[in-house]
């Protein structure tokens, strides 16, 4: 058997796992690993400027490909810097393996230099974690980590590696296991057929159906199955913020996003439906509004890989635990003959329901209103113009705030994995590094980061990494000169007291990006918008930053009325509610 040092073994195991990229930053505790990395060229390492960005890059890589993202950080500050990105991945169920250096085994617990209890500090935000005790454990631990991160409900896994474990002086037998099995971990591989049949009966006998699907369909690679089912049934469908693209956003059956900033038609259809088919979605509080008023007329079928997501906040009448792709495959098989037998009465009931929905749709809740002679750019229009300039075909990442909601509402996605945002944790600073990860995974595709002047400054140092690796991403900064989403809440709830929600000292973004060797544009009026965006998107080999000065007074609407509102209670415009 081959003999390798711990450090070499670690790198070899990643190679054997098929890892192509590692996002990381070196330091004392990982020097042996970095030396092993230096001696090979199968795995490419991307040197970031801050460890948080490494985790978001790995995350963007994972979201855009479905393959796990891999991160190296050193002990202590390297590890703690990674925590926000790990938590971000955890909340959105993204497969990721983070290898953190740890001080030497004999120093653990002595408050030694750059020691921090990484397993402890990350515990609430990982799917699982390992502290490696000896180099001989490395191959199996790494295999397990990847298996856990990518199977069942995916999530981040931390492997904490004490420095002595990777020492170059001691050699061990290397043998990478092909599979691992754990008696305590066996995610479901198919749904319960009895439950599936019950669900089919309900789908064929309801009057006002609604399909509500989430990030689980994107991450579970079931967009095709979902689309097939929805088309076959002819039912209305909505996607969560995390699920956008799983069903084509430009299709007529799609009612738009639902929830806090969901469309009038999607939220109303949720409220009035008599059967809710929830797929890979978790009834988040940003969806349901007041739980006791959620879907008052509906029976609920809930398909999810994670049993703990079922009946957590909203009771499911028919729970189906299983991987969404396998469950939907089975349902589609059983549904086809049933749909062929659908009675005229059933068909006309569905048509009536659609009529009601079309009535809501005629509200045209996303219509952009502008005053005669106003030359200011509305942020919604900026997203619409970007959609045109990219032919609706870009990978789009976003940060967190108003711009995120405008992106979600005004850029319809026709495919899963094209829309990448931090929905669960809502991490400002996610957008740029996530775009970098997506661009590295898809070097020939257009990757755009829609951001705000607040969020972009939370990881702006990565412009330097973009120079180093020649990443031609496009950054569209919807610059409203304020922490817009915070300001919106202050306008609506705190009588316009803008407590610390604006910044007086923004940089000149054009000069800033130019200093890194990138291209910058600034757009201030509506007639410049389309030409500049077209020009920017046409520059394929360079990073382009477009600073779009948008109307700072815009709010995101619709917006659910809280507290105590149901899903049909919405603000539609400033001062106008249902």
């Amino acid at each position, binding site marked *: 058997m081959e003999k390798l040092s711990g450090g070499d073994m670690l790198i070899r195991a990643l190679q054997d796992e098929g890892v192509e990229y590692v996002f990381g930053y070196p330091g004392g505790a990982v020097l042996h690993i970095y030396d092993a990395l230096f001696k090979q060229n199968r795995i490419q390492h991307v040197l970031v400027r801050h460890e948080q960005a490494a985790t978001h890059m790995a995350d963007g890589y994972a979201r855009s490909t479905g393959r796990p993202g891999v991160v190296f950080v050193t002990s202590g500050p390297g590890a703690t810097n990674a925590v926000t990105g790990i938590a971000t991945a955890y909340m959105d169920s993204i497969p990721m393996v983070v290898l953190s250096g740890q001080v030497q085994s004999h120093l653990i617990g002595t408050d030694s230099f750059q020691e921090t209890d990484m397993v*402890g500090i990350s515990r*609430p935000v990982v799917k699982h974690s390992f502290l490696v005790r000896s180099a001989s454990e490395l191959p199996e631990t790494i295999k397990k980590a990847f298996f856990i991160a990518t199977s069942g409900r995916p999530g981040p896994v931390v492997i904490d590696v004490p420095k002595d474990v990777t020492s170059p002086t001691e050699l061990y037998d290397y043998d990478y296991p092909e599979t691992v099995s754990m008696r*305590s971990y066996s995610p479901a591989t198919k749904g319960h057929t009895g439950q599936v049949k019950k669900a089919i009966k309900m789908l064929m006998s309801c009057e006002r159906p609604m399909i509500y699907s989430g990030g689980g369909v994107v991450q579970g690679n079931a967009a095709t199955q979902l689309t097939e089912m929805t088309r076959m049934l002819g039912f209305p469908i909505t996607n969560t913020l995390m699920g956008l693209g799983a069903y084509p956003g430009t299709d007529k059956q799609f009612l738009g996003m639902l929830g806090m900033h969901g469309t009038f038609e999607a939220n109303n259809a949720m409220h009035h439906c008599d059967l809710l088919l929830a797929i890979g979605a978790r009834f988040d509080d940003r969806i349901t509004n007041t739980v006791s008023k959620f879907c008052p007329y509906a029976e609920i079928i809930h398909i999810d890989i994670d049993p703990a997501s079922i009946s957590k906040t909203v009771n499911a009448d028919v729970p189906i635990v299983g991987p969404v792709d396998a469950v939907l495959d089975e349902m589609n098989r059983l549904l086809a003959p049933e749909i062929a037998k659908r009675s005229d009465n059933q068909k006309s009931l569905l048509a009536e329901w659609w009529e009601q929905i079309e009535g809501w749709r005629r509200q045209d809740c996303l219509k952009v209103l502008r005053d005669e002679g106003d030359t200011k750019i509305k942020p919604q229009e900026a997203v619409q113009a970007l959609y045109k300039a990219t032919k609706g075909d870009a990978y789009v990442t976003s940060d967190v705030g108003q711009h995120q909601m405008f992106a979600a509402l005004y850029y319809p996605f026709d495919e899963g994995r094209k829309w990448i945002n931090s929905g669960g944790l809502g991490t400002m600073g996610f957008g740029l590094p996530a775009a970098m990860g997506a661009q590295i995974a898809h070097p020939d595709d257009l990757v755009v980061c829609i951001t705000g002047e607040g969020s972009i400054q939370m990881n702006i140092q990565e412009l330097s990494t973009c120079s180093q690796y020649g990443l031609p991403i496009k950054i569209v900064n919807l610059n409203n000169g304020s922490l817009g989403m915070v300001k919106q809440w202050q306008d609506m709830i705190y009588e316009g007291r803008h407590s610390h929600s604006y910044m007086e000292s923004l940089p000149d973004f054009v000069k800033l990006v130019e200093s890194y060797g990138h291209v910058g544009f600034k757009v201030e009026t509506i007639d410049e918008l389309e030409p500049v965006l077209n020009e920017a998107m046409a520059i394929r080999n360079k990073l382009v930053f477009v600073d779009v000065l948008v109307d700072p007074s815009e709010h995101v609407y619709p917006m659910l009325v809280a507290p105590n509102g149901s899903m049909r209670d919405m603000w539609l415009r400033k001062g106008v509610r249902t």
Partner: protein
Amino acid sequence: MRRIISVLMENEAGALSRVIGLFAQRNYNIETLTVAPTEDETLSRLTLTTFASDEQVEQITKQLNKLIEVVKLVDLTEGDHIERELMLIKVKATGAQRAEMKRTADIFRGQIIDVTQNAYTIQLAGTSDKLDAFLRAIPEASVMEVVRSGVSGLSRGEKVLST
């Protein structure tokens, strides 16, 4: 409602902290907790008591099951079960109190396991209620120190929790 949840888990470093962490993180309470390796030394058996509604206990068991190191678990309070807790109690035992204390201990089937001129240490096993009752039965002022093991338990009959 009071629940007794019994968990079979990998006997590995970190497993216990994950269980405890889960309870803290998700705002569930832990009343008592005991843990020790089983006859199979790769496994530990952890028993905890908590107060939870039906919905809460469903979430607790689902979340516990999600922990990679948890092999199996059961809510013992769902069925017929046996529960025991051990209490060691050091009491003042002087003069007339000495005989009285012994009599009370006998009634509760307690054993005096350490004796000095002025004090007894009594060992008592039983349900938590019984241990509480003993504490109420002796004069409060006589209690010097109490240590309780927390509840452990298993199902009645032939039902077992195993891999």
